[in-house]
């Protein structure tokens, strides 16, 4: 996953506005508060609730 560290710092969960964590195994950004993972497609984070998936376990 080639997401820029600076980009990650500025992104927030569209639902709770909290910070996101990279989840390399999922090719996604995860919100630990909402337990939602947002996909990264072609290196572009998709921060839409419509395309987010819930996860049960801790972010990878």
């Amino acid at each position: 996953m080639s997401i820029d560290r600076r980009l990650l710092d500025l992104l927030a969960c569209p639902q709770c506005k909290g910070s996101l964590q990279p989840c390399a195994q999922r090719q996604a950004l995860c919100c630990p508060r909402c337990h939602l993972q947002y996909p990264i497609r072609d290196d572009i984070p998709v921060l839409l609730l419509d395309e987010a998936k819930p996860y049960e376990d801790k972010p990878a």
Partner: protein
Amino acid sequence: MEDLKPMSNQQKLVEKQFGVAATDYLHSPAHAQGADLQRLRREFAEQPAMRVLDLGCGAGHASFTLSEVVGEVLAVDLSGEMLRVVADEAQQRGLSNLHTEKSMAESLPFADAYFDGVVTRFSAHHWADVPAALREMRRVLHPQGKCVIIDVCAPENPLLDTFLQAVEILRDPSHVRDYRVSEWQAMLAAAGWQVSDQDTWKLPLDFASWISRMRSPEERVTAIKSVWAGAPTEVCDHFALQPNHDFSLDVCWMTALPL
């Protein structure tokens, strides 16, 4: 925590509509050129530490312009295809301070007060909920920051307004509304903004390329021509309608500051 809604069908229409024509917008003179881009450059010039958000970036013309003068630009759109075009073009131009991210204006995925500037150019007429977007723009902008809104606008005259929205929705099923300047002023005030500068000008359009960019089906093109053919002279005069159906749109620029 905000109550976040999933994308409406209208927003899916936007995504679909702009996915097929992404590169056309990169090369469209109506989008790639314009004194407003030079004005944007001047507005944010010599601000190397500035972070600017470009909402509904489309093919990225405002983002490319701004990334040459500010520290960092975040280009946001609902269309993944558009964002890929923007990312590729940014790479070709060596603009390493331009990032792309897919989200909607009504629920922005950024921390409060992160940006020093927020701009949107030729996008807001597609937004499902402009008041919600203006509140989000206000939230992510630093209290000393500045917002610039550039969009097609409707004349204040109801007859002219109706004809404009009619041809817009026929051409583009994802069209929502070209707002009047008075509507922008009211929506901005309600969302906690004060307008510090505003301007309007005419944007002449080539009908054939205006239609082909949107891949409008033939029956809709015929309907637009029929609407224009039945238009009273004051409508034809206002939009500078030509025999080949070329015409001019009104465009507005609004600079807004947080109250």
